């Protein structure tokens, strides 16, 4: 049986530079990522953290690749007890100009078989990336209540 891998592609009417900023700037991510600020100096090997409104860290990992505005990769795992036996999985973002659009492809891989974290991110990414697309195209993120994602457990 193959190990789980999550792949998601979306097309956004924006520039690679704006999309890059939206993926790496904490002020920006806070608006569309369920309030999470990404924190990193984006140097390969540096720490990567998701910071909640109250300053606590929800997820942590390391920067693996940073080639603005084309490729960004980092590992992370959620730090809650629910996922205490899980290890960081690798999320890679590829930004490709596509006519007047940008094609964004996210591949999230390196999960153990039966990973609960995999199940969680599979529900989270479509909401986060849909809200990102709305924010870049309309100036407004989506208001999706966290509960609407129907996480298990």
């Amino acid at each position, binding site marked *: 049986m193959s190990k789980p891998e999550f792949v*998601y592609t979306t*097309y956004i*009417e924006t520039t690679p530079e704006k999309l890059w900023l939206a993926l790496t700037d904490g002020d920006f991510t806070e608006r569309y990522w369920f309030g999470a600020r990404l924190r990193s100096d984006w140097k390969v090997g540096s720490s990567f953290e998701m910071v909640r409104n109250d300053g606590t860290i929800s997820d942590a990992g390391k920067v693996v690749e940073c080639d603005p505005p084309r490729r960004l990769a980092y590992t992370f795992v959620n730090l809650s007890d629910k996922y205490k036996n899980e290890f960081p999985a690798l999320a890679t973002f590829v930004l490709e100009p596509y006519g007047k659009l940008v094609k964004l492809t996210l591949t999230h891989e390196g999960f153990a078989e039966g990973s609960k974290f995999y199940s969680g991110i599979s529900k989270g990414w479509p909401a986060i990336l*849909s809200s990102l697309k709305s924010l870049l195209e309309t100036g407004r993120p989506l208001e999706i*209540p966290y509960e609407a994602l129907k996480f298990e457990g």
Partner: protein
Amino acid sequence: MNVDNFKPTTVYTIYIAATPEKVWQALTTAEFSRKYFFGNAIEVEQRVGGAYVVRQSDGSVHISGEVIECVVPRRLTVTFNVNWPELVERLGPTLVSYEIEPAGDAVRLTMTESHDRTIDDDILSGGRQGWPAIMSSLKSLLETGAPLVIRMAPPQQMLAALKRMGIKTP
């Protein structure tokens, strides 16, 4: 048609700032679909057993099927058979299901493509390439009033795999 033995092969979820009714309208009318579905016009008889047809801009039938499930504005399941010679005979029918769920002020739209037998990944690459483009453009259309301009040819690996199976493509 019994769809119990169909298994999902491709699932795509997208959240859209729109009402379920607007999303339903976009999925079931020619007027909307022409704008986001590579110029294709969708015609649906909204009842179980009704016809589901997708026409190309020249009027020719590209996809034909039958409505399996129709719960306005929540759930639409149709057979979705591309009109290429021998395709259904060799690959069996394709099933496409749309689920529309409220999620705060937005809706979650989930598209599921299913098949009743094992289908080669090379053949599935057509849908896996196409659905994200179609759904992204549908979202832009409903949120901004303008669809995306996405030009796309069928993936070479799909065309080659169909050719190997004796299925002719345009």
